[in-house]
């Protein structure tokens, strides 16, 4: 199976049902995007997991740097007032 080293990696996103969003489920190797969709169908939807597939070249994903986690995410830790938990919700409002 060493030949697949030549095939780029694609990240796979599956929508489980209409109305839901596409969720990342894993990745496949494929020669191009068309083949990636077929591989994703064969690998990730064998048990009725989805109704729609997105594929994207893994190399096209720009990720945050784990080394910068402190700067990026720590400042949010002590700002609990950003959670909407300090409001009295009127009884009349059933779904909020």
């Amino acid at each position: 199976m060493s030949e697949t080293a030549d095939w780029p990696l694609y990240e796979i996103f599956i929508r489980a049902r209409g109305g839901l969003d596409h969720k990342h489920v894993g990745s496949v190797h494929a020669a191009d995007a068309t083949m990636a969709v077929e591989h994703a169908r064969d690998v990730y939807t064998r048990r009725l997991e989805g109704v729609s597939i997105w594929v994207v070249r893994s190399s096209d994903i720009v990720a945050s740097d784990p080394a910068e986690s402190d700067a990026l995410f720590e400042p949010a830790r002590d700002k609990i007032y950003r959670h909407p938990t300090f409001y009295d919700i009127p009884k009349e409002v059933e779904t909020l």
Partner: protein
Amino acid sequence: MSALTPEAAARVAPDVRVCHLLRIADTSLVLAQRLGEWVGHAPAIEEDLGLANTSLDLLGQARLLLSHAGELEGRGRDEDALAFLRDEADYVNATLAEQLNGDFGDTIVRQFLLDAYQLELYERLVVSADRRLAEIAAKAVKETRYHLRFSSGWLVRLGDGTAESHARVQASLDRLWPYTRELFDADSVDREIAAAGIGPDVGVLAEAWSRRVDGVLQQATLRRPADTPFHWYGKRGQHSEHLGYLLADLQYLQRAHPGARW
């Protein structure tokens, strides 16, 4: 195939109907077994799963068709008895289905030629006068559309790929092409089935298959081989040397331990 009634189908002798069903079922079963041999050996794990998925679809079709044939036959044989306890000469699959996997290109060519055939066949069987067969075809036609998409996709990639992949897949096509003649060589069973509206006219099927195959071959930059006077009649139980070994594998457990279950 005109819109005939189940009564017209019922007038056809059961052994003719059973033979017709077994030809379709055995072709699916034998091809499923062949594709199963790829598991763990395909060029990539994704292809491994793709071939296994196709194999399982075909096995599912064979099970439904064999059960239906067993009921029509009325001799108490179920799908398992028909799959595991029939000898080589009683198998009536297309000879093409039993041909060896060879390299990936050989497998793709065999798959493509049979996928195109099964798609044209199932698309017509959905209006069969045999209601049960029509139901089975309605399920199978969706699966087969995907099988053909998979195999034609690869045929185009290999045919229109590198010089080596082109030469090798053209050689596979030249080698396997003669086995397709049998599919369109109508005999008395085919004619009786068509007259009763149970199955399509074989001539119509041949034309539709030919058009579909030509379209993909052109995309794949492959040359359609010339038809040669070459006849195999797997559909009458006259097989190539490969089927016996395949059945030995397929049937070993039930032959060695009759009635074994788990």
